[in-house]
């Protein structure tokens, strides 16, 4: 083993990769579980945009809020804002809890809901009758 004592400088190239400084867990306070069922294809929209409210939000939530002025899916938001889906879910859930965004129901929401399924069946029967 040789230790060069003449020039104890740095390895060539310095730091090669740069990892993100703001980590995803810091954006959600470490939370990973959302209060709402939010799938990749779930659509959200802002019922009534409030510029003053937008000012109070942190950058990520703010861009979510601004981008959801017209209905948009979580997948699209994640891609266009380059925020990981896991973070988007929590932030959207937080916004929904404040009723700042509306989560559009997807087919999945009713999957195991018997009353809904029965009503749909009823409706179909009436149509055919």
């Amino acid at each position, binding site marked *: 083993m040789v*230790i060069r004592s003449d020039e104890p400088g740095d390895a060539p190239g310095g730091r090669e990769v740069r990892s993100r400084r703001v980590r995803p867990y810091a954006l959600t306070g470490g939370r*990973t579980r959302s209060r709402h069922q939010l799938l990749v294809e779930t659509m959200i929209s802002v019922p009534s945009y409030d510029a003053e409210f937008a000012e109070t939000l942190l950058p990520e939530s703010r861009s979510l809020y601004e981008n959801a002025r017209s209905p948009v899916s979580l997948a699209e938001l994640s891609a266009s804002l380059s925020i990981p889906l896991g973070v988007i879910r929590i932030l959207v859930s937080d916004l929904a809890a404040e009723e700042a965004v509306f989560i559009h129901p997807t087919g999945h929401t009713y999957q195991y809901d018997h009353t809904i399924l029965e009503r749909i069946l009823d409706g179909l029967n009436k149509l055919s009758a």
Partner: protein
Amino acid sequence: MTRVRDMLERSRRSLLAGSARERLEGPTKQLLQRSRQSVAQFVAPTTPKQPSPQEVLAGVCSSVALRDLNLVDSLLEQLERMEADEDDPDSLASLYKLDHLATRLRRNGENLRVLAGRDAGENMDEASSLVDVIRAGMSSIEHYSRVELGKISNLGVVGVAADDVSRLLAELLDNATSHSPPTSAVTVSAHLTEQGSVMVRVEDSGIGLPAARLSALNERLASTPVLDRDAVRHMGLAVVRRLASRHDISVWLGRRAPHGTTASVLLPESLVHETSVPAKRQVQVSEKPEPARAQRSPDAASPQRPTTGPVTRARAAERTERTGQTGKTEKTGKTEQAEQAEQSSTTPNGLPRRVPQSLKGAADNGPAAVDNHDLTESEQRAGHEQLLADLGDFAEGEQAARQDTPPDDTTHRRAEQ
């Protein structure tokens, strides 16, 4: 073997006899001496003669730390990718834990380099928003979830200092969270002072420090950084001191009412970057040359553009106004200016863009160079012709006035008499 021994013996004898030494004397020795001198002239000013053992050790430490950092960076990058693909909340929570550990590892490595007097990492070109600088610091401490963001001005920190400021804040946040009750929050806030500097405050609600201890710590924070025994005990403080002195940042601790400690960080005006738009979106709007970002921008910006377009453009105009007045020539400022100048001749609809009066005034007075460059050749020629015409008119007017003067003069004199 015997032959080798013979040869050794012979050479030793000849050395003793001085025949070899004699051969070295004379012209050879002179040549050697001269070349040594000339080499010394070239080399001496740049490299110190003999690094002290402490310097060597610091060098070794920072070099090892750099290797570690490269590994940690790769680890974090890999984790980022896994986190992005993870759908299951429980698995994601585990990934976050690993991410958090790796990020703290990164902080240790960077601190080691800071203490060894090296740069902790490469500087960024772009400014970071104050919120991101604070959250970056928050990301690398153990009890990050107890940090609450208070009111934070919509400003940025220049690229050369952004990471160092977040490292400095990380140490203060770590201190605050570990010396206050585990259920209490630590609040960070940042506001612009009247002098144009930014004051960042880290407030905890611990039991606070006795007055004597507080003043001793403040004394250490204000003194020039050295590596001594105390630096080992108060690693965080030593890092804060080094980073602060590197960027002319002042840091001090104070008592907080009713109880607790406030760490105040004063960022000088030179580190403050005025950003009215979050860094991310600014990139999408203004940066063209970097292909990686350009890829992201179309889908990102297109749904936004109709709504945010006018606002950002107005802000862009504001920014040119500001840079025009102060004559700042920053790296980013220049490219922005150039692009905005391109934009500013016409609106997207092809209509001539209005220029604020103050901007016009500034162009006429002093720092006109920036604006003149952006005029097309024909515009410049038109301006030149206009000027010639004006001069011609002036000359004619003057002549006419001269012709009129004699009678005028006489009437004037008459009136005086």
